[in-house]
C-alpha cells in the first residue's frame, strides 16, 4: 500500500487511494477479520501519519491490545499511542487491559504496557494504575525497572499527590549500577523534586553524597565501549546527574558545598571540542550559576561562557547567550565585560542568535552605558532586515524611555528612530514623545526645527510626519522666528509660507493615512492664528478639503472653515498653545487600563457627539441645528479619536446664539484647569473625554485630550449644571460645574440622585482613594418625602458579576417623615472592569409605613461612567 501511495502523482490521486484503502480496512474491521488485523492497523497508522482521519480504527486497537498474542499486543499498543491521545474518552477502556498487562509474566508485555502508559496516560488512568507501576520499580529485570521509573514520571506529573509514594523506591534506584536504570532513576528523582518539596528535602538530606560519588566515578571511569561517546563515558548520565545536583544545591549552602569539588573537576577537565563535551559543560555552568555562591567556581563558569561566546559554532554561541541571560541575574558586572561580543551577536545573520543577543543587550543597559548602546542599536537599525526591525524598534524605544538621562537626548534619539523606522513605532511611543516634547518647553524651538528638517528630508515614515505636523502646528511661530536656538543648532530660515507648504504636503500626499491628514488639518488651523499673513492661503487649503470623500476630513474642513469665516472672535482662544501635558497621567494611564470603550450609559447629556452614534443622537441633533448650515448631519461613527475636535466646534456655535460671550480668554489659566481634569474628569461634563473615541486604546484617549481642548465636552443644550449661568455655556466654562467637588487627593465625582419616587429619595455620594481607581466608596442617603414615618427600613443592592459590592450597616432603620432626617449607609463597590464598563446596580428598598409593608425596586443607571 505504501508503494501505491508514494506512486501517486497528485494529491487527488493520493486521496483516492487512501479512501479505497480505508474502505477496505473498515470492511475488514466489520467482518472481524483476524488474519490481516495487524497489517490493517499498520496501514491505518501510515494513513494517519499522512494526515487523514482514522477514528474508526480506534476500537480495533483496543481489541488488539486485549488479545493474547504478543505481536497483536505490540501493534495494538503502537496504534494506541499513535492514533489516540489522553483527551479521548476511548482511552479509559484500555485501563483494564493495561492493568492486566502490567501484571503479565512476560516482561516485554509489561514493557509495552509501561510504554503506553508513560506516553499517553490521562490523570485518572495514572491514579488507577500507580500502585502497579510502583511495584514494578523493584522488578527483577532492569529494563522493566527503567521503564517503570519513566512511567512514574508521567504519573507524578499528572497526579502530583502521589509523589510521596514514589520517593523511597526512587532513592533506591539511585544506588544501581545499570546505566539505564541509573539515568531513569535520576530523572525520576529530579521530577520528584520539582513536584514535591518534601521529596526535595528528603533527597537533599540523604542522597547527595551518593550522587556526587556516582558522578565522580563516571567522570573518572576508564574507556567503556558500550557507553563511550566522543571520548566521554555516558555524557547523558553526566548531564542528568548535574541537573539533579543543581536542584538539590539551589538555595542550600551545605548541599552546595558538597558539590563544589566535583563541579570544579567536571568544568575544568571536560573536553570541549565535541558536542557531547560542550553539552556537559553547558549543564555544569548552569549548575554552578544556580547553586550558592562560591567565588572560584563562578569565575570558572564565566570563563567557560566567554569561550562559548567566541566559538565559531552557531549552536555554541546560542547556548552561550542563553546562559548569559540566566547568569546576568546573578552577576551583572562580569557580563558587562562581554558587551562587545554580545553586540556583535546582534548583527549576526542567524535569527535565533540575533533575538537572544537583543534581549541580552536590553538587560544589560543601565544609566551609564545607555548612550553608546543606543547609538549602536540605532546604527544597526539602519541595516537590519525588515522582519527584525519591528523588534529592534520596540526595544530601542523602551530603552530610550526608561533610561533617558536628559530630554534633549531623548528627543534626538526618538527622532532618529522615527526617521529610520517610524512605521514600526507603536502609537503609544510617539504619543509619549509628544508629551515629552510639550513638557520640555525650552526645547520647543529646537524640536520643531529638527522635525522640520527631518520632515523635509523624507515623508516616508508616517509617525515622523505626524509628530512633525503636530509640532509645526503648535510651535510654528518658533520655527519661523528661530526662537530658542540652542548653541548646537545651525541656523535655518523658514518662512511662514514654507511651514504651510510643509503641512500642505502632508495633506496632499497620497500615501499618508487619515490620521495624519486629519492632524495636518488641525495644524493648519492652528497656524491660521499664528501666521496671520498666510491666513488666506490656509483658508484655501482647508476649503479644498470640503469636498473630500473622506468623511473625517470633510467634516473638519467644513467646521474649520466655518470658524474661519464666521467666528473669528473665538478662533485664537480655540487654538491657544496646548497646556503642558501631564506626564504622570500618561504613565498612569499606560499602566492602568483606561480603555475607552464608548459608553452607552444613560449619561446621555455629555456624550459622544461623534464616534458614538445612537444614544447620543438626540442632543447632538440639537447641537447640529444650532451650528451653521453646512455642517453635515450624519455623525460619523468609528473613525478617528481626533474627531472629538468636533466638540469644540459645535459648542461655540451655540455660544453666539445665546449671546453670552466666551469668558475672557483666560487662555492659559482656563486651559490649565483643563489639565487638572485631564484625567478621568469630574463632573458629568467630561467623562466624555475618555469615552469619546470609539476605539479602545488608552492612548487615543490621551490624544483626545491632547489635541482636543478636547475634554471639552459638548455641553448639551440641556446643560445639567444650574450653576452655569447662561444657557449654552461658554466653551471654556464647561468643565467643573461643581468646583467644590474637586478633591486634592483624587478625582471627584458628583453625587447623583440614584433613585427617586414619590415617597423616597436616595442620593449617592462618591469618593475614591487616589491610588485605587477600581474601588468606589458610596455614601447612600435616604430621605423620606412622605409625611409618614418609615420603620424597618432595609436597603438591598445587587450588582452584575464584574462588580463586587460590600454593604455596611445603615445608620438606622427608621426614616423620619418629610425629610426631617435621613438614613445613611455606606457601600463599597469594586469594578473589575474599571474603565471598560460603568457601574450598574439594582436596588430594593423595603419599609413599613402604618403597619403596611412596602417594597420599592429600581435600577440605577446614572452612575458617572468613569467610576
Amino acid at each position, binding site marked *: 500500500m505504501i508503494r501505491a501511495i508514494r506512486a501517486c502523482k497528485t494529491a487527488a490521486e493520493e486521496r483516492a487511494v487512501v479512501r479505497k484503502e480505508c474502505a477496505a480496512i473498515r470492511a475488514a474491521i466489520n467482518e472481524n477479520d483476524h488474519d490481516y488485523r495487524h497489517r490493517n492497523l*499498520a496501514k491505518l*497508522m*501510515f494513513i494517519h*501519519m499522512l*494526515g487523514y482521519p482514522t477514528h474508526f480504527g480506534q476500537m480495533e486497537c483496543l481489541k488488539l491490545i486485549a488479545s*493474547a*498474542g*504478543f505481536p497483536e499486543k*505490540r*501493534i495494538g499498543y*503502537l496504534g494506541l499511542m*499513535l492514533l489516540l491521545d489522553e483527551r479521548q474518552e476511548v482511552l479509559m477502556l484500555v485501563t483494564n487491559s493495561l492493568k492486566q498487562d502490567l501484571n*503479565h*509474566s*512476560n*516482561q*516485554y*508485555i509489561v514493557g509495552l504496557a*509501561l*510504554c503506553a502508559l*508513560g*506516553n499517553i496516560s490521562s490523570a485518572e488512568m495514572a491514579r488507577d494504575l500507580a500502585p502497579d507501576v510502583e511495584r514494578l520499580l523493584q522488578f*527483577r*529485570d532492569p*529494563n522493566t525497572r*527503567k*521503564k517503570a521509573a*519513566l*512511567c512514574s*514520571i508521567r504519573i507524578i506529573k499528572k497526579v502530583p499527590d502521589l509523589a510521596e509514594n514514589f520517593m523511597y523506591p526512587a532513592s533506591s534506584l539511585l544506588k544501581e549500577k545499570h*546505566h*539505564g536504570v541509573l*539515568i*531513569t532513576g535520576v*530523572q525520576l528523582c529530579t521530577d520528584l523534586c520539582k513536584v514535591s518539596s518534601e521529596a526535595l528535602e528528603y533527597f537533599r538530606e540523604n542522597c547527595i553524597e551518593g550522587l556526587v560519588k556516582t558522578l565522580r566515578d563516571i567522570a573518572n571511569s576508564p574507556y567503556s565501549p*558500550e557507553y563511550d*561517546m566522543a571520548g566521554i563515558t*555516558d*555524557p*547523558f*548520565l553526566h*548531564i542528568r546527574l548535574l*541537573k539533579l545536583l543543581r536542584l538539590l544545591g539551589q538555595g542550600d549552602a551545605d548541599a552546595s558545598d558538597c558539590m563544589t569539588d566535583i563541579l570544579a573537576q567536571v568544568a575544568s577537565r571536560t573536553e570541549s571540542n565535541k*558536542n*557531547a563535551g560542550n*553539552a556537559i559543560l553547558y*549543564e555544569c555552568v*548552569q549548575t554552578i550559576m544556580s547553586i550558592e555562591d562560591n567565588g572560584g567556581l563562578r569565575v570558572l563558569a564565566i570563563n567557560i561562557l566567554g569561550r562559548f561566546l567566541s566559538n565559531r559554532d*552557531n*549552536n555554541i*554561541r*546560542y*547556548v552561550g547567550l*542563553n546562559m548569559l541571560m540566566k547568569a546576568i541575574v546573578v552577576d551583572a558586572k562580569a557580563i558587562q565585560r562581554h558587551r562587545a561580543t554580545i553586540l556583535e551577536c546582534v548583527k549576526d*545573520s*542567524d*535569527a*535565533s*542568535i540575533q*533575538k537572544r543577543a537583543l534581549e541580552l543587550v536590553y538587560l544589560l543597559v543601565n544609566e551609564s552605558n545607555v548612550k553608546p548602546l543606543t547609538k549602536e542599536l540605532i546604527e544597526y537599525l539602519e541595516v537590519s532586515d525588515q522582519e527584525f526591525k519591528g523588534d529592534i524598534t520596540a526595544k530601542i524605544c523602551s530603552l530610550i524611555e526608561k533610561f533617558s538621562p536628559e530630554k534633549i537626548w531623548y528627543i534626538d534619539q526618538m527622532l532618529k528612530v522615527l526617521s529610520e523606522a517610524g512605521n514600526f513605532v507603536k502609537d503609544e511611543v510617539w504619543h509619549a514623545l509628544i508629551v515629552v516634547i510639550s513638557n520640555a518647553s525650552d526645547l520647543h524651538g529646537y524640536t520643531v526645527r529638527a522635525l522640520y528638517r527631518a520632515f523635509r528630508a523624507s515623508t516616508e515614515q508616517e509617525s515622523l510626519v505626524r509628530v512633525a505636523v503636530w509640532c509645526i502646528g503648535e510651535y510654528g511661530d518658533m520655527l519661523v522666528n528661530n526662537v530658542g536656538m540652542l548653541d548646537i543648532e545651525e541656523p535655518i530660515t523658514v518662512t511662514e509660507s514654507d511651514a504651510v507648504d510643509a503641512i500642505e504636503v502632508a495633506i496632499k500626499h497620497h500615501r499618508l493615512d487619515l490620521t495624519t491628514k486629519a492632524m495636518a488639518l488641525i495644524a493648519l488651523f492652528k497656524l491660521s492664528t499664528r501666521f496671520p499673513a498666510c491666513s488666506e492661503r490656509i483658508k484655501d487649503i482647508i476649503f479644498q478639503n470640503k469636498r473630500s470623500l473622506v468623511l473625517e476630513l470633510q467634516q473638519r474642513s467644513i467646521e474649520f472653515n466655518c470658524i474661519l469665516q464666521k467666528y473669528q472672535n473665538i478662533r485664537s482662544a480655540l487654538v491657544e498653545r496646548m497646556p503642558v501635558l501631564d506626564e504622570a497621567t500618561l504613565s498612569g494611564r499606560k499602566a492602568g487600563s483606561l480603555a475607552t470603550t464608548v459608553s452607552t450609559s444613560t449619561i446621555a447629556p455629555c456624550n459622544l457627539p461623534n464616534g458614538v452614534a445612537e444614544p447620543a443622537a438626540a442632543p447632538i441633533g440639537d447641537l447640529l441645528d444650532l451650528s451653521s448650515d453646512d455642517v453635515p448631519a450624519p455623525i460619523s461613527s468609528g473613525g478617528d479619536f481626533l474627531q472629538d475636535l468636533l466638540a469644540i466646534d459645535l459648542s461655540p456655535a451655540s455660544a453666539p446664539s445665546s449671546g453670552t460671550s466666551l469668558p475672557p480668554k483666560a487662555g492659559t489659566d482656563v486651559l490649565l484647569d483643563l489639565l487638572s481634569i485631564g484625567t478621568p474628569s469630574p463632573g458629568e461634563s467630561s467623562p466624555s473625554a475618555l469615552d469619546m473615541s470609539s476605539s479602545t486604546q488608552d492612548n487615543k484617549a490621551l490624544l483626545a485630550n491632547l489635541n482636543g481642548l478636547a475634554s471639552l465636552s459638548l455641553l448639551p443644550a440641556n446643560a445639567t449644571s444650574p450653576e452655569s449661568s447662561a444657557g449654552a455655556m461658554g466653551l471654556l466654562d464647561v468643565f467643573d460645574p461643581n468646583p467644590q467637588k474637586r478633591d486634592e487627593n483624587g478625582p471627584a465625582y458628583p453625587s447623583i440622585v440614584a433613585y427617586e419616587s414619590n415617597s423616597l429619595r436616595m442620593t449617592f455620594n462618591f469618593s475614591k482613594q487616589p491610588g485605587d481607581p477600581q474601588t468606589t466608596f458610596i455614601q447612600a442617603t435616604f430621605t423620606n418625602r412622605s409625611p409618614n414615618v418609615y420603620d424597618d427600613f432595609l436597603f438591598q443592592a445587587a450588582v452584575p458579576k464584574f462588580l463586587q459590592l460590600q454593604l455596611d450597616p445603615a445608620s438606622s432603620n427608621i426614616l423620619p417623615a418629610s425629610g426631617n432626617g435621613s438614613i445613611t449607609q455606606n457601600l463599597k463597590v469594586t469594578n473589575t472592569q474599571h474603565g471598560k464598563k460603568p457601574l450598574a446596580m439594582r436596588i430594593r428598598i423595603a419599609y413599613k409605613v402604618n403597619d403596611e409593608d412596602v417594597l420599592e425596586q429600581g435600577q440605577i443607571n446614572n452612575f458617572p461612567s468613569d467610576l
Partner: protein
Amino acid sequence: MCFEKVIRELGGVILSRGPKLCNFVDWRGFKVVYKRYASLYFCMCIDQDDNELEVLEIIHHFVEILDRYFGSVCELDLIFNFHKAYYILDELLLAGELQESSKKTVARLIAAQVFCLMEPCCFNGFTFQ
C-alpha cells in the same frame, strides 16, 4: 493543536533555515532542536529549560541505533518500516525522557522482542542479558 498543522508549520520554519544557522528554533514558546541527515530532518520539541546540546546528542544516538539496526539506514527504510522505527524509538524515549544510553542494550532488546514475535503465543519471557 492538530498533528498535521504542527508538522506543516514546523516544516515551514525549519526548511527555510539556511545551512550555517544554529540548530535551534523558537516556536510557540517551546524550543525545537533539529538535525539534518542528508535529506531527512529529525526534530525534537523541548521545554525552555532543557539542554539543547544534549538533545542534539539524543538525536544522534537515535540515528546511530537506527543505522545499526537497518544497516546503513536510508529514508526508504524508515518509510516502509515505520513501525519498526517506532519500536526502536519506544526503547529509547519514554514519557519524553531518555531511557537507555547504551546502543548495545537497545539493540539487544529489539532483537529479543523480534524473537517473541516469532512465537505464535505468549510465553514466560526469558531474561536476555
